[in-house]
């Protein structure tokens, strides 16, 4: 499903965020990506999302060579993957409802289906009463949940989440984890989740990939927040 081959990402200013990453993730897997701040986790996600192009190597998702996609084809590719960005990326001038609906409108879903599905995911993340609020009127954790709701709205084949629980309290984090596990189990969605939350990783044990300074230093099913030194 996801395959990185010798992926290197050097930013224009010379920073090498990823330094030869080889990684295979199969359909239906649930994988944590952990690692210290600045180790290249978000960069890895940007490569998978097509936002950045690998300087070397290749990134293949669902058979598509993401780095080679034409600029105009990138959005179409993205319809198959849901991404929760570390900085949320909500449309400021749209309400919560409209933000989530937008992801369904772009694939020309019928109006009534959109309405039903948006209500459904808003309920899943616990935001039933915030449909008409604008992002600026939400708390940090509420914005984060809107981002999660939007990412899962059109039932993507791959869900990529960059610290989806960074601004949530432990109870809410746990609820979101349970939700993601359910999606993973029931819809067979491949899930890739970047997290710093030790408690979460220890509680819901999964395959865990540890990044450090742009290279994978561990890839283990042993579970638990892996301390590398």
């Amino acid at each position, binding site marked *: 499903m996801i395959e990185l081959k010798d992926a290197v990402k050097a930013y224009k200013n010379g920073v090498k965020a990823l330094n030869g990453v080889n990684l295979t993730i199969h359909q239906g897997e649930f994988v944590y990506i952990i690692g210290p701040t600045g180790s290249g986790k978000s960069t890895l996600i940007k490569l998978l999302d097509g*936002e*950045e192009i690998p300087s070397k190597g290749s990134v293949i998702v669902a058979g598509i060579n993401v780095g080679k996609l034409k600029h105009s084809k990138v959005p179409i590719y993205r319809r198959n993957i849901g991404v929760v960005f570390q900085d949320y990326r909500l449309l400021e001038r749209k309400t919560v409802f409209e933000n989530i609906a937008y992801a369904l409108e772009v694939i020309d879903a019928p109006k009534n289906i959109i309405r039903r599905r948006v209500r459904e995911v808003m309920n899943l993340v616990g935001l039933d009463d915030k449909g008409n609020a604008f992002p600026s009127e939400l708390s940090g954790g509420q914005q984060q949940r809107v981002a999660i709701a939007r990412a899962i709205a059109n039932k993507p084949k791959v869900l990529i989440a960059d610290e989806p629980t960074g601004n949530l309290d432990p109870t809410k984090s746990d609820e979101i984890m349970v939700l993601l596990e359910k999606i993973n189990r029931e819809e067979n969605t491949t899930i890739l989740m970047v997290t710093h939350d030790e408690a979460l990783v220890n509680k819901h044990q999964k395959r865990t990939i540890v990044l450090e300074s742009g290279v994978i230093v561990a890839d283990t099913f042993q579970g638990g927040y892996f301390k590398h030194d």
Partner: protein
Amino acid sequence: MINRFLRHIKEGFYGVGRHSAMSVSSASAVTITLLLISIFLVVTSNLEKITSKIENSVKISVIVSYDFEAQEDLDRIDSQIKNIAGVKLVTFSDKEMEFDFYINSFPEEERVIFEPYRSENPMHHAFYVEVNEGSMLQEIASKISAIEGVEKTNYGGESSTMLVNALATTRQGGFILVIALSLLAIYLVQNTIKLTIFARSNEIWIMRNVGAKNGYIRAPFVVEGIIIGMLGAIIPILTTIFAYIYLYNKLGGKLLSGIFVLIPPHPFVLYISCILLAVGIGVGFIGSFFSVTKYLRWKR
């Protein structure tokens, strides 16, 4: 498909409302631009009409030599003049008429001075030639001069050509200025729209993040641009209609006690309004289209 079209239209209207400050900025840029264009259009159109009227009223007078006063000579000269390209109308005026015309140009009390001369009339037969275009006066006059039996031609002297040339220059200059200023003004509006869209480039980028194709992102922005263009055209159109009708009535349709006749408002202001609306819509469309396109390429 229809659904989607309606959705874009709706989104466009929402956009205008939700970014009201920016919409007002863009629309006011359109308004000012169109006001400028309207003033120029009205002035140049009237100038155009006035000059063509003056040009038409300038005639060439053709003096027939004393040696060619036979009727056959006059007929020949008449038909030769009529054959020249650009000649509109030729009228004949005989010696007697010329004499009357001449002495009538003096104050009544002085006319007696000339009466003794009526018997030995010193005037010539003459033709008066109207031409299609004022700018051809000189050329046609010299062709007429070459006809056998024509003693000399006269077209109001240098001052006449000069006036006609001056008006033609003004008209041409005015036309170029209108085009140039319109282009500059349109650039200004486009610039303004670009800035309002720049303030939302982040939004455009996020839309791509969520899977929206470029065309899908662009559509509501373009609708918004068109709406803004139309809104911006309202004040200039109303101003043009009411101000022109008011001025026309106030001046009695004339400028400078009647030498210059203004274009009647009735169909004229409608044409101008259509042009303004079209420019407004066009500017809004083009401005938003290209600006969005530019920011679509901002990030992958």
